């Protein structure tokens, strides 16, 4: 079990990062010009509300003490109140997690479903016409802006052929999945171009590897060589690639949720930016950063579990 010892030690390495993240989010809001209490509460705040927030965040104290107040509040799960929604930031964030999580999960699943067969097709025809076409299409696909792709998919699959709803989020699970179809297709198409490139070259490497040659020498048919030896080995680094791209993926959900009016964290963030709801911006930035760190940690565990040779 010593392979898994890093599960205990790795979180210690995350501490400085999380600490840094808290400083950055703290500083971001304090850098906004003007009286911080007014910044946090908006122009129409009552004097009592201003006094309350000054006391809670120690806004009359020196900056380093304010940071300690900030950390203390954070430890109690208090990230202030949203000006727009008049509720605490943490519960607000919690109610918006589900659509974002569902969007990320379905996009990842869908992109793997798209990328793996195409990468296999390209790798097995390495240098051929099929390979060439797939490579050109991926190079082209990398440049698709997600906000534009969303609209084109709406035009095609919601307006011209009314298969899916245009926007919003459903009530029951089937309705939700229908509403998630186009947003996740948008993100998945972008993500699969990234996956396809790396999967293709990994598959080509493994097709040439000693493992594959040995299998062929034992008389295994090419398809078995591919399914049993090439594919599992080539897929392993994909977990890591997904984790590395998680930040980018979350950025994508921000844009796509805004286009499709999906009530997730991304849409909440964009709305908070326009209503100058700084507590919410701070909370979401913090939540997203922690999620990215956590996902990278989980990806490390998955990598070790998937490949016995990996030591972290």
């Amino acid at each position: 079990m010593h392979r898994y010892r890093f599960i205990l030690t790795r979180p210690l390495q995350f501490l400085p990062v999380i600490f840094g993240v808290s400083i950055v989010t703290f500083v971001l809001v304090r850098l906004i010009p003007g009286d911080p209490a007014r910044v946090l509460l908006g122009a129409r705040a009552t004097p009592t509300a201003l006094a309350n927030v000054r006391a809670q965040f120690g806004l009359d104290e020196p900056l380093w003490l304010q940071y300690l107040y900030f950390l203390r509040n954070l430890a109690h799960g208090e990230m202030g109140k949203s000006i727009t929604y008049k509720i605490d930031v943490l519960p607000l964030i919690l109610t918006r997690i589900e659509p974002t999580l569902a969007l990320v999960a379905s996009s990842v699943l869908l992109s793997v479903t798209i990328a793996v067969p195409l990468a296999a097709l390209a790798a097995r025809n390495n240098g051929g016409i099929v390979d060439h076409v797939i490579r050109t299409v991926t190079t082209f696909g990398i440049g698709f802006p997600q906000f534009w792709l969303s609209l084109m998919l709406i035009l095609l699959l919601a307006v011209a052929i009314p298969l899916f709803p245009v926007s919003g989020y459903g009530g029951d699970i089937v309705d939700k999945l229908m509403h998630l179809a186009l947003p996740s297709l948008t993100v998945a198409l972008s993500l699969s171009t990234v996956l396809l490139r790396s999967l293709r070259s990994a598959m080509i490497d493994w097709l040439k590897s000693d493992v594959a040659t040995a299998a062929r020498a034992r008389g295994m048919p090419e398809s078995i060589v591919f399914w049993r030896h090439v594919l599992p080995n080539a897929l392993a680094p994909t977990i890591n690639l997904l984790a590395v791209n998680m930040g980018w993926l979350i950025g994508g959900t921000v844009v796509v949720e805004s286009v499709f009016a999906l009530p997730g964290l991304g849409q909440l963030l964009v709305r908070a930016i326009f209503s100058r709801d700084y507590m919410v911006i701070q909370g979401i930035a913090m939540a997203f950063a922690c999620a990215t760190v956590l996902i990278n940690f989980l990806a490390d565990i998955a990598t070790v579990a998937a490949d016995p040779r990996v030591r972290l």
Partner: protein
Amino acid sequence: MTTSSSARIGLRPLAPGLVILAAFLLVAILAPVIAPYDPVLQDPLARLQPPSLAHIFGTDNFGRDIFSRVLHACRVDLQMAIIGVVFPFLIGTVVGSLAGFFGGIIDLCVMRLIDIVLAFPFLVLMLSIIVILGQGLTSFYVAMALVGWVSYARLIRAQILVLKTTDYAMAATSLGFSKMRILFKHLLPNAVAGSLVFSMSDAVLVLLSGAAISYLGLGVQPPTAEWGVMVAEAQGFVTQAWWITLFPGLSIVLLAFGFSLLGDAMGEVMGVHE
């Protein structure tokens, strides 16, 4: 990276990407000359016209000529992709080479800082910085410089770590050259190939982010023609007038394709693999 391999392959793979980028550059320079209409001129009598001979890309809800707007937007978007890459490239190169060369406490601090920046989703950090600086293109460039340098710093640092143990680095040290001379004259020129190749895929990322931020309403402001802004403005009319959204989007895709093609070809020519 060796001269023999680039001599063998030749510079021909660079051609398709260079042609596309040169075409966009030409359009950007000549936009006022070749655009048939003023990009912000409104014509109430020609609202939402489909593509025709008079307006080959059609007109938008204000009667503005889409073709002229797409051409003028090319200036903004190309500038965005270039400036958005140059500053992070320069900052990242300097920081990364200093960290890799001197190691120790500098390296430790730089690496921790990179970890912190990378912990934030790219677009979320960009948007948070733009909130403080206020919306607009200048804020976008500043935010890009503050966030984008980390990738270059990591690439250069890794290269310098390898290169500083090479024989020629030792030879330069034993000749008594100053540390700065060794770092910037001897090591850095050999370390930048990977960053140059990466800068092309970074240009795609910057272009897409700039357009997305403008689409969200925090970057380039209307009525200035910019491809992301154009898509945002046309969104309400997407079902009746597909042409307003189609052409700006295609322009982004094509410009990004040019950068990607050039990046792939540069990797091939220089023998660098991402």
